[in-house]
């Protein structure tokens, strides 16, 4: 997915990861680290490739939480939350399920 982030091709890998580690320490993320976080889809290929057995995918997710401002540091990236998500879920439930199913299965 890194090909989808214009800041990443040609970036120094160590600098990118250093920026991610900074985010885990609640520091300001480098533009390259933030770019990686923005395009990460948690495929887990980084974890599978790590020779030290580190769960890099989880590191990326926690760094993303940090960049979103969830862990105390200022927000550095925009949240992806879909506006009206739960209302939409409720509406499709009523379109697809009977009132009894909603009551029994979704309360």
């Amino acid at each position, binding site marked *: *997915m890194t090909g*989808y982030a214009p800041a990443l091709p040609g970036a120094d890998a160590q600098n990118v990861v250093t920026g991610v580690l900074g985010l885990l320490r609640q520091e300001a993320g480098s533009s390259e680290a933030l770019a990686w976080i*923005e*395009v990460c*889809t*948690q*495929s*887990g*290929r980084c*974890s*599978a490739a790590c020779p030290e057995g580190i769960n890099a*995918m*989880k590191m990326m*997710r926690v760094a*993303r*939480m940090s960049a*979103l*401002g*969830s*862990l105390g540091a200022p*927000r550095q990236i925009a*949240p*992806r*939350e*879909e506006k*009206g*998500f*739960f*209302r*939409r*879920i*409720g*509406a*499709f*439930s*009523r*379109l*697809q*399920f009977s009132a009894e*199913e*909603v009551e*029994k*299965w*979704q*309360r």
Partner: protein
Amino acid sequence: MSETVTFWYGCNVVRHGDIVRGAIALLDAVGVQVTPAGGAGYCCGTAKDANLRAAEGMAQRTVEKFNQHGHGAVVTWCPSCHRHMNGFMREYNDPQFSFAHITQILHQRRDRLAARLTRRVERRALLHQHFGFHEVEVNPLVADLLRLVPGLDLVLPAYSAPGHMCSALTPVPRALPDATRATCEAARAAGADTVVTVFHSCQRLLCGLESSEPFRVVNYVSLLTESMGIELPDEYKAWKNAGSEEKVIELIGAGRMAATGDRFFREAILPEIMRRPQK
């Protein structure tokens, strides 16, 4: 795994009641009785990375409900929920249950399933794969299940899309159109008349291709239930390919529209249904 389990189908799959009912029928066919649980009331909280207090509350509530079910086992459908349970929910709650993905349960009991797949499904079907659900190797499991369907000619393409399902690509500009285009090209190259989705968001985001491509888009659950003789129409797909707002409204009907709230339906639901897949 006990014989009665909680079937946790998640939030976004509620657009596809046919998938939920089909999955329940498949679990029943392999001897697993379920307490279905899903929708907003059972949210895992994975969408709330920007608000961990909310995420924690949702996770805690959902785990407590599963504990109250008392089955000792939860079968997941949604890969996001499965991942969040695996990586976060169970770490700061007290889950009193094991959990496994539905593909694992069906695959373990595929001999029982095979005995129920009696109707031929004459299709050349290309499996739409993603490589990002690393917690469970769903692609080979689903492929094995589909090979049980008499008459089905399964094609496994070299291409796998990034992410765990199509919705994972929507926040990344160009990523979903690229994956959609690659899937279309693979289907055309294989001469497939059907593209088989594994997850609900792929079904949601690809099913509109039927209006412009020479193949159908069908979830694997639907192919398996079809072979069992159970027909479960994919209404969302019918709406998506209806062609006009008037036709969508006609298919849904005034009663169901009113149940969602007419204004909300027109402002939020109808635009989603009318949106075409980009490729």
